[in-house]
C-alpha cells in the first residue's frame, strides 16, 4: 500500500491539496457570508427531543420568549435629582434598544393610584413629566419616595430602603432559544455603552442568563483566536525542538493541516456553528494528529541510518501502520464515547473529533510518507539529531530501567495518594464561576450579591387542570398559601406573581388593604373582576404572569445565583411545598434558562460515566486482543488508568467540579494516553520476538520509542496547555487536567511501564509459546542489536 502512495506522489499531493483547499474555501465562505460561526444559544446544548428543552419552549410559547436581566447601578444617592434625570435618559434609551421588551426602574415603575380626578390609574410613580434636563423639586422628590416606599413589591426588587446608593433596572429582553445570531453580545454592549455615558452612575453590574450567554459567546470568539494562535506557535516551537529540522516540521504541519481543515470544513459545510465545546476541537485535533506522524518521522530517520530512504519509509509505515491504527482507534473510541451524550456540543465534539482523527491517520499513512520521500528522497541518510535534552532523558531512563523495579512500583503506588481526592469530586456547575474572578461578569455577580439583590429568576409555572383556572377559589387559596411558603424559603429574595399584583389592585380598588384571610377567601367573581379592572386600568404587567385564559400562571422566585446543585436542592424544596399546599392535579413546572442549564448537569454526569465505562471496557478488551496477552493487557490498563485516576483525584482535592467541559476529560484522557503505551508494548513485544531478553527489549524500546513518546507528549501537553489561557474556566480546566494526565502518563510510561515489564518474565517455555513463532525465530537469527527492525530486510 505504501508503495502505491510513494509511486503516486503527485496524485497524493493533489488529492490532499484539493481536499484542504476545498474545505478551506468552505470555511472562508462561511466566515465571509456573515453567518453564525459561534453559537452559544441555549438550544444548541440540547437535542431536539430533550424534555427540559421542550418544557422551556412551551413556556416561551405561552409567556413569550423573554427573560430578565439585572442592571445594578451605583451612585451617591439614587434620590439625587441629577441621577434620577440621568436614569430617565438611560431608561428611555434602553427601551429603544433592539431585543429589549420592557424596562422597569424606579423612574418608570407603575403602581395603582388615583389621579387628580380621583380616577384609578396604573401609572408611573415618578412625578416628572419627561423633559430633558428637568429635575425634581424637593416636594416632588418627597412624594416620589413615599410612593416608592409604600409598595412592598418594589423593595429589594428595584431599590432598597436602607441602601440608597444602589438601584436596579430590570430589563426584560428576548430569549430566543434557537436564534444563533449574536444579538445578546450586541445587546450587552449597547447597554454598557449607554450606562457608561452618564457621570452620575459611579458603577454598574449586569447579570442574568442573557449576559452569561453573551460572555460565553464572547469568550468562545476570543478562545478561537487565542487558542489557534497559541497552538500554532507552540506547535512550531515544540515541533522544532523535538524534530530539529525544517523539513520534518513541514511534514508534521502538513499532516496537522490535512486533518484539521477538512474536519472544520465539514462543520462549515454542514452549517454547524462553533460553541464552547466544539471550539476546542481544532486545538485537540492539532495536538492529536501530531502524535502518529512524529512516530513515523522518527522511525523513518532511524531506518535511514541503515538503508535507502525509499526503503526506510516503506519499512517505517509497514511497521507502524498497525500501532498507529490501534492508537487512532483507541483515540477515536475515546471521542466516540462522547457521541453517546445527549448534550449536543459534546456529541458534536465526539463525532467530528473522531472523523478528524481518522483523517489524521489517513494523512499520516499517505501524505507524510510522500512528503518524507520528497524531502529526504535523494539522501541515503537523513537522520536528524534528537534534541540533547530528550536524548539525555532517554539515556537516563534506559540506565535506570533495569534497576529496582519494585522500588519504582512502590514509588508509583505513592502517586496513588491523590486518587483519594476522587471521593471529593462532584458534579456541580455555577455558571457565574465559569469565568475568572477578575472577569467583569464574576465581579458583577459578586457586586449584585453584596448589594443584596437577586440575580436569578426561577420560573415556576402552574398549569391548571381542565375546566379550572387561576381564579378558581379552591386553587386560589392553595396558591396563595404556596406563595407564602415560597417566600419563607431562605434562597428566595422576592416573589413576583399575579397574586402580588392582584393584592395591589385590590388595595387600590377598595381603598384599603384587605386582610390576608379575606383576600384568600376571594371567589372567582372577585378575582376575575379585579383582574379585569387591572386590564382596564392599563396594568399590562399581569400579562407577564397570567395567560389571558388564566389556565396558566407563573410565579417568579427571585434568588441569588444558585449552582446547579443548589438549584436542585431548591427545586426539591419547591416540590415539597407543592405537595404540602397544592392539589395533585395542578401541574407545577420549574423552568427557565438557569433550570435548563442545571438539568444539563445530570446529563453531563451521565456522559462522564458512560464515556469512562465505555472507553475503559473497550480498552481492557482491546489491549488484551492486540497484545494477545492478558497480563500485557492488564499492565497497559494499569499504566493508563492511573494517570486519569490521579488527575481526577487532584481535581477533587482542588475542588474543581465536573461540568460540561471537564466531564469529557475521562474518556478523552484514556483514549489519548493509551497511544504511547501501545507503541511501547508493541515495540517491546517485537524485541522479544526478535530474540532480545526482557531487559534488553525494554532498553531497546526506550531508546527508540521513548524518543517519540517524549516528543509527542511534549507536543500534546503544549497543545492542551493553550487552553489554560481561556477566560472560560471549564476550557482552561480541561486543558490543564488533560495536560496533567498526559504528563503523568509519560512518567508512568517511562518509569513504571518498564518496571512492570521487567517483572513480566514468563518462563522460556511460556514465552516461547506466547511470542515466538517460526518466523520470528528466523528473524531472531538475523537480528542486530541497535537496528531493531533490520531483521526484516
Amino acid at each position, binding site marked *: 500500500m505504501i508503495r502505491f502512495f510513494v509511486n503516486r506522489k503527485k496524485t497524493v499531493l493533489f488529492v490532499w491539496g484539493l481536499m484542504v483547499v476545498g474545505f478551506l474555501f468552505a470555511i472562508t465562505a462561511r466566515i465571509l457570508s456573515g453567518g453564525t460561526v459561534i453559537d452559544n444559544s441555549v438550544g444548541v446544548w440540547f437535542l431536539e427531543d430533550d424534555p427540559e428543552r421542550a418544557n422551556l419552549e412551551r413556556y416561551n*410559547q405561552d409567556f413569550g420568549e423573554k427573560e430578565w436581566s439585572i442592571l445594578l447601578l451605583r451612585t451617591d444617592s439614587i434620590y439625587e435629582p441629577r441621577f434620577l434625570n440621568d436614569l430617565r435618559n438611560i431608561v428611555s434609551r434602553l427601551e429603544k434598544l433592539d431585543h429589549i421588551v420592557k424596562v422597569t426602574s424606579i423612574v418608570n415603575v407603575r403602581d395603582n393610584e388615583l389621579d387628580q380626578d380621583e380616577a384609578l390609574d396604573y*401609572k408611573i410613580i415618578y412625578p416628572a413629566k419627561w423633559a430633558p434636563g428637568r429635575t425634581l423639586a424637593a416636594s416632588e422628590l418627597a412624594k416620589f419616595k413615599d410612593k416608592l416606599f409604600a409598595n412592598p413589591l418594589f423593595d429589594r426588587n428595584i431599590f432598597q430602603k436602607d441602601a440608597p446608593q444602589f438601584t436596579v433596572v430590570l430589563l426584560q429582553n428576548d430569549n430566543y432559544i434557537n436564534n444563533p445570531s449574536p444579538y445578546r453580545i450586541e445587546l450587552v454592549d449597547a447597554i454598557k455603552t449607554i450606562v457608561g455615558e452618564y457621570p452620575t452612575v459611579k458603577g454598574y453590574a449586569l447579570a442574568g442568563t442573557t449576559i452569561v450567554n453573551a460572555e460565553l459567546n464572547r469568550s468562545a470568539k476570543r478562545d478561537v483566536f487565542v487558542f489557534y494562535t497559541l497552538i500554532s506557535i507552540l506547535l512550531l516551537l515544540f515541533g522544532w525542538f523535538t524534530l530539529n529540522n525544517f523539513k520534518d516540521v513541514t511534514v508534521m504541519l502538513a499532516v496537522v493541516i490535512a486533518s484539521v481543515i477538512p474536519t472544520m470544513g465539514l462543520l462549515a459545510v454542514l452549517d454547524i456553528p462553533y460553541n464552547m465545546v466544539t471550539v476546542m476541537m481544532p486545538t485537540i485535533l492539532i495536538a492529536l494528529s501530531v502524535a502518529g506522524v512524529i512516530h513515523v518521522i522518527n522511525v523513518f530517520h532511524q531506518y535511514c541510518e541503515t538503508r535507502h530512504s525509499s526503503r526506510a519509509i516503506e519499512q517505517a509505515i509497514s511497521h507502524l501502520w498497525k500501532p498507529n491504527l490501534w492508537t487512532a482507534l483507541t483515540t477515536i473510541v475515546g471521542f466516540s464515547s462522547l457521541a453517546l451524550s445527549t448534550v449536543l456540543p459534546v456529541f458534536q465534539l465526539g463525532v467530528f473529533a473522531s472523523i478528524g482523527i481518522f483523517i489524521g491517520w489517513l494523512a499520516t499513512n499517505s501524505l507524510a510518507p510522500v512528503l518524507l520521500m520528497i524531502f529526504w528522497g535523494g539522501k541515503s541518510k537523513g537522520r536528524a539529531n534528537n534534541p540533547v535534552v530528550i536524548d539525555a532523558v532517554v539515556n537516563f531512563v534506559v540506565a535506570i530501567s533495569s534497576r529496582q523495579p519494585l522500588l519504582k512500583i512502590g514509588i508509583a503506588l505513592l502517586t496513588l495518594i491523590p486518587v483519594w481526592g476522587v471521593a471529593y469530586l462532584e458534579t456541580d456547575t455555577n455558571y457565574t464561576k465559569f469565568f475568572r474572578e477578575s472577569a467583569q461578569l464574576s465581579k458583577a455577580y459578586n457586586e449584585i450579591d453584596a448589594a443584596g439583590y437577586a440575580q436569578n429568576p426561577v420560573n415556576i409555572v402552574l398549569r391548571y387542570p381542565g375546566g379550572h383556572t387561576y381564579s378558581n377559589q379552591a386553587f386560589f387559596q392553595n396558591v396563595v398559601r404556596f406563595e407564602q411558603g415560597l417566600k419563607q424559603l431562605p434562597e428566595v429574595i422576592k416573589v413576583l406573581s399575579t397574586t402580588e399584583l392582584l393584592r395591589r389592585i385590590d388595595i387600590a380598588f377598595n381603598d384599603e388593604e384587605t386582610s390576608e384571610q379575606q383576600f384568600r377567601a376571594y371567589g372567582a*367573581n372577585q378575582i376575575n*373582576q379585579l383582574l379585569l379592572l387591572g386590564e382596564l386600568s392599563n396594568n*399590562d404587567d399581569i400579562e407577564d404572569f397570567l395567560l389571558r385564559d388564566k389556565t396558566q400562571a407563573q410565579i417568579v422566585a427571585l434568588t441569588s445565583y444558585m449552582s446547579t446543585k443548589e438549584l436542585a436542592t431548591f427545586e426539591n424544596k419547591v416540590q415539597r411545598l407543592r405537595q404540602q399546599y397544592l392539589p395533585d392535579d395542578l401541574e407545577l413546572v420549574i423552568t427557565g434558562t438557569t433550570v435548563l442549564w442545571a438539568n444539563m448537569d445530570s446529563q453531563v454526569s451521565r456522559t462522564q460515566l458512560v464515556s469512562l465505562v465505555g472507553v475503559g471496557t473497550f480498552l481492557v478488551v482491546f489491549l488484551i486482543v492486540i497484545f494477545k496477552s492478558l497480563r500485557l493487557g492488564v499492565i497497559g490498563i494499569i499504566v493508563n488508568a492511573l494517570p486519569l485516576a490521579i488527575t481526577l483525584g487532584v481535581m477533587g482535592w482542588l475542588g474543581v467540579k465536573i461540568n460540561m467541559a471537564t466531564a469529557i476529560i475521562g474518556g478523552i484522557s484514556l483514549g489519548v494516553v493509551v497511544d504511547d503505551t501501545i507503541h511501547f508494548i508493541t515495540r517491546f513485544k517485537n524485541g522479544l520476538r526478535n530474540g532480545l531478553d526482557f531487559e534488553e527489549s525494554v532498553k531497546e524500546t526506550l531508546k527508540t520509542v521513548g524518543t517519540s513518546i517524549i516528543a509527542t507528549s511534549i507536543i500534546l501537553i503544549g497543545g492542551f496547555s493553550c487552553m489554560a489561557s481561556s477566560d472560560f474556566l471549564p476550557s482552561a480546566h480541561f486543558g490543564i487536567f488533560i495536560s496533567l494526565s498526559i504528563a503523568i502518563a509519560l512518567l508512568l510510561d517511562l518509569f513504571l511501564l518498564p518496571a512492570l515489564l521487567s517483572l513480566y518474565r514468563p518462563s522460556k517455555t511460556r514465552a516461547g509459546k506466547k511470542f515466538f513463532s517460526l518466523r520470528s525465530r528466523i528473524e531472531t537469527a538475523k537480528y542486530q542489536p541497535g537496528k531493531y527492525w533490520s531483521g526484516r530486510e
Partner: protein
Amino acid sequence: MKTIIQKILYISAIAATWVVAQPALSKSAEVLGQEIIEEVTRRDDGFGDFTSDVTMVLKNARGDTFERYLNVRSLETKNDGEKRLFVFKKPRDIKGTAVLNYTHVRENDDQWIYLPAFKRVKRISSANKTGAFVGSEFAYEDLTSVEVGKYHYRYLQDEMVDGLECFVVELTPAYENSGYRRQITYIDKANYLFRRVDFYDHDDQLLKTLHLTEYRQYIGKYWRPSITRMVNHHNRKLTVMKWDNIRFQTGLSGRDFERNTLKNLR
C-alpha cells in the same frame, strides 16, 4: 449662447412655478383629506343611539383563542364624542361588570367601572388612550368615534381595497398621549366607510392593521361593520369583534349612561 440662456430661463420659470404652487398643492391634500373625513362623519351624524352584542375573540401568537361577550350601548353626543356603555355578559365570573365611557374630542375620556362582586363603582383613568381595551388588541382610542377635530388629515392617493376603490387618507393625532404617530385609513369612495386602517407607532413602524368587513346598513342610513379584525404585527396577536343584533335609535337617553345606573344593569 442664446439657446442656453433660453433654457436657463425656461428651467427657472418651471422651478419658480413649482415653488409657488407647492403650498397650494399640499394644502389641497390636507383639505381634501379633511373633506373626506368630514363626509364620513356627516354620513354618520344623527344616529342617536345604538346597541349591539359583541363577541370578542382574542387569539394569541400560538393560535389559542379566548372569548368574551359583551353588550355595547352608544349614545351620540352633540359636538363631543359619544357616551358608551360596555356590559360584560360572559365569562360568567365577570358577568355584570360594566364600563361607562364618555369620549371627548380633545380631552381625556371619562371612564367608570362597576364590579358587581364588590358592588362598587370606581372611576378609572383613560388618560392613557394607548392602553389595551379589556386585554384585546384594540386600544381605547381605536374604539372611539372619529371626530374631525381629533386629527390632522392628508389625502395621499386612491387605492383598491377588497375590490373597492378607496381614498387613502393619513390621520395624524391632534391630541396628546396617542399611541400612534399616524394612521393610514382606506375609505371606500361609494359609501365613505372605513375599510382598513394601518396604525403606525411612534417609531413609524407598522404596529397594527384593522380590517372592517361585512358592512350592513341600518334604518336605511347608517352603516356598521359586522366584523372588525385587529392584527398586531409586533406580538402577532389578533382580536376579532363580531357585532350582532345591532339596533339604532332604541330610545336610550343620557340617564342610561349615568354612573348611578351601573349598579342596576343586568
